[in-house]
C-alpha cells in the first residue's frame, strides 16, 4: 500500500507542474489559436530568476518569488508583442514557429546570463517529510499541488467572472465577431500571454525547490504541458489541469512498474488512443474542431 501512495504523491506533484504549464498553453491557444511553444521556457525563467535573485540579493523568499513571476510576465508580454506585433497577415503555423524561435532564443539568453549549472531554491516550509499511510511526502509537494489548484481556480474564475475573461472567451469563440463588438482582440492576446507567463512562472517557482532547474529545463516541460493541454481538450482550463495530473500519474506509475525507460512512450500511447476515441479531449473543450489553416 505505501508504494501505491508514494507513486500517487509523485504523480500528483509532477502532474501539477504539467497541469499549470498546460493551463498556460490553453489560455494562449483559446485566445489566439496559437500553440505557444515558449510556454515551457516561462516555467524555466520563473525558477531561474527566483533562484538567482534569492541567492544574489538576499531578498526574503516571497519577495524573490514574486519578483520572478512579475519579470516572467513581462517577458511573456514582450514575447506576444514579437509574435503578433510585426507579422502582417499572420498564418497560425507561422506564429507557432515564431514561438518555437522565441523558445530557443530565451534558452540561449538564459544559458549566457545564468550559465549552465543547475540552480535550486530552499523549500518553503522545511524538509522534514510527512508520513501518510507509510508513504513519505515532502512538504514542498503540498505547496506545489496546493498552489497549482489555487492558481488554476483563480484563472478559471478570471475567465468566467471578469469582463476581460469573458471578452477573451468571446475572442476564442469567434475572433471576427468579437472584434466587431469592439473587443480589442490584440489587447486580449497580450493579456493571455501575460497570464500564461505568470502561471508558467508560478509552476517554475514552486517546483524548483524539489526538481532544481537549469537553462535547458524548459523544453521538456513545455512538451509535456502541450501534451497535457491536448489530453484535457485544448481550450478548457479544468481539462488542461486534469490532463497534466493524468500525465504525471501515468509517468509515476509507469516508472513505479519498472518501465521508467518507457515513461514517455506510455504517456503518448495513451494520448493517441484518447485522441482517437475522444478527439475533443476529456472535458468538453470548445469541441469545435480547429482546422489549422496552413
Amino acid at each position, binding site marked *: 500500500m*505505501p*508504494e501505491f501512495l*508514494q*507513486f500517487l*504523491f*509523485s504523480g500528483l*506533484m*509532477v502532474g501539477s*507542474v504539467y497541469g499549470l504549464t498546460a493551463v498556460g498553453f490553453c489560455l494562449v491557444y483559446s485566445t489566439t489559436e496559437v500553440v505557444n511553444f515558449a510556454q515551457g521556457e516561462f516555467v524555466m525563467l520563473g525558477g531561474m530568476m527566483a533562484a538567482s535573485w534569492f541567492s544574489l540579493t538576499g531578498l526574503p523568499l516571497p519577495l524573490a518569488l514574486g519578483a520572478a513571476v512579475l519579470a516572467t510576465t513581462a517577458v511573456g508580454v514582450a514575447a506576444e508583442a514579437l509574435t503578433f506585433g510585426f507579422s502582417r497577415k499572420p498564418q497560425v503555423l507561422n506564429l507557432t514557429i515564431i514561438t518555437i524561435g522565441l523558445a530557443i532564443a530565451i534558452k540561449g539568453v538564459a*544559458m549566457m546570463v545564468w550559465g*549552465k*549549472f*543547475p540552480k*535550486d531554491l530552499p523549500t518553503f516550509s522545511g*524538509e522534514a*517529510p510527512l508520513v501518510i499511510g507509510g508513504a*513519505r511526502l*515532502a512538504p514542498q509537494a503540498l505547496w506545489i499541488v496546493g498552489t497549482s489548484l489555487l492558481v488554476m481556480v483563480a484563472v478559471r474564475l478570471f475567465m468566467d467572472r471578469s469582463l476581460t475573461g469573458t471578452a477573451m472567451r468571446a475572442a476564442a469563440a469567434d475572433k471576427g465577431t468579437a472584434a466587431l463588438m469592439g473587443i480589442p482582440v490584440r489587447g486580449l492576446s497580450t493579456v493571455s500571454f501575460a497570464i500564461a507567463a505568470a502561471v508558467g512562472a508560478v509552476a517554475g517557482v514552486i*517546483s524548483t525547490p*524539489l*526538481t*532544481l532547474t*537549469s537553462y*535547458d*529545463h524548459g523544453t*521538456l516541460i513545455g512538451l509535456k504541458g502541450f501534451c497535457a493541454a491536448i489530453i484535457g481538450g485544448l481550450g478548457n482550463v479544468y481539462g488542461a489541469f486534469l490532463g497534466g495530473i493524468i500525465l504525471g500519474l501515468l509517468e*509515476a*506509475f509507469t*516508472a*513505479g512498474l*519498472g518501465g*521508467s*525507460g518507457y*515513461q*514517455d512512450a506510455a504517456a503518448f500511447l495513451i494520448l493517441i488512443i484518447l485522441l482517437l476515441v475522444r478527439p475533443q479531449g476529456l472535458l468538453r473543450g470548445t469541441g469545435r474542431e480547429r482546422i489549422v489553416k496552413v
Partner: protein
Amino acid sequence: MRLARMASIVLGVSLMLLAGSARAEEVRAYRIGAIFSLTGSGALLGERMKTTVEMLVEEVNRNGGINGHPVKLIIYDAGSEVTKAVEAANRLITQDEVDIISGAGNMSGLALAIKPVAARYGVPMISNAGARSIVEPVEKSRWAFKSHLTDREVIGRAIDYWKSKGISRVALLSDTSGFGTSARDELKLQAGPSGIDVVAWEEFDMAATDLTPQLTRIRSANPEVILCWTVAPSGVLFMKNARQLGLQQILMHGFGYVVPKYMQMAGDAAEGAVLVSLRYPVGEQLPDSDPTKKVILQYNAQYKAKYGSEPDVYGAEAYDGLLMAFKAFEKANSFDKEKLREALEHLEFIGTNGVYQFSPEKHYGLTKGDAVVFEWHNGGWKLLMDATTR
C-alpha cells in the same frame, strides 16, 4: 525563360560559394582537434576541459612548442548531441586536417560516435569518456585511446570497497545515456563472480524531475547500498529523494559525479555520500609517496594562477588526455598518423589521475588500482580507500 534559367544558376552557385572556402597555408604546426560538449546536458563537464586544454597549449607554445613545432588547437562544441559530434569530427579531419583528436567528446555516447569517423580516416583519437567499449575490443579500436579509467575499473574498485565493508546487497540506479547503460552492463558482468547480489536495477531519464518512483521500488528490495550512475543534475535529486523516503542506506555515485557544487546543492542529504573516482579530487590527501600528487598540485596552482578559480576532475581528465597527445608528438616527432598511433601504444607517463601504461593490447593507461574511494563529509572529500598503484 532566360530569366528562369539565369536565376537557377545564381541559386546553385551561391550554394557552392557558401560551402567551399579557401584556407590560407601556414607554418606546419602540430594540429590537435578537440570536441567537448559546451552546451546541452554535458555542458558542465565541458567547461573546465576547454579552459584546461587552452591553458596547456598556451604554456607549451610559450616554451617553444614540441620539437620546435608550435601547437594549434581547434575546439568544437558537440552540444551533448551525437550528430553534432560526428559532424564536428568530420570537419576537424577533412577541413582543419588535424593530426590527432584529443578529448573526443566528454560523454561516452559522443566518443562512440566519433570512433568510426577517426578510424575511417586513420586519425588517432584520445577520449576522456568512461565507457569501456571506446577502446574494447582492441582489434576494432586501433585508432582509439582513453585517458580515463573505464567503468570496468571503477565498478571493480567499488566491488573491492563493498567487500572490504562486508556489503553484498546492492541496488543500481543508472540513467538512460550511453554512460549509464555501459556501467549497467559492466555491473551485470562483474557482480555475479564477485559474490555481489544486485537486488534492484532501475533506470531514469537524464531530465527526470522526480526519482521517488524508482527509489520506492529500490526500498522494497532493501539493498545495503544504492549506486547512482549519471552526470546529470538529477543525481542531486537521487540523494534528496532517497533521504526524503527515509532510506538510510549508503548512497554512492560513480566517477561521473565528483562535483562539490552538486554535493553542496543536495545539502545534508549528501552527508556521507561515497564516491569511487580518480585520484584528482583528493589530491592533497594523497600520501607524498604517490607520484601523481605532485602533478595534481602543480595543475591546481597553474589553473588558479591563470583563471583564479578551482579546476575540477573533468579538467584533470582533459589535462591527462592532452598530455598524451603532447608526448605522442614528442616521441613520434613526425606528422605521420601511423607513427603517432605507435607512440601512443607504447606511452608511459604520470598524469593527474595515475601512472599511465599503454600497450598494443590495452589502449587505456590506468588500472583498477588507480581508482580511489572517498566520501563527502562536512563539506569536503575525505579519503576512505587509497589507490594501490605507485
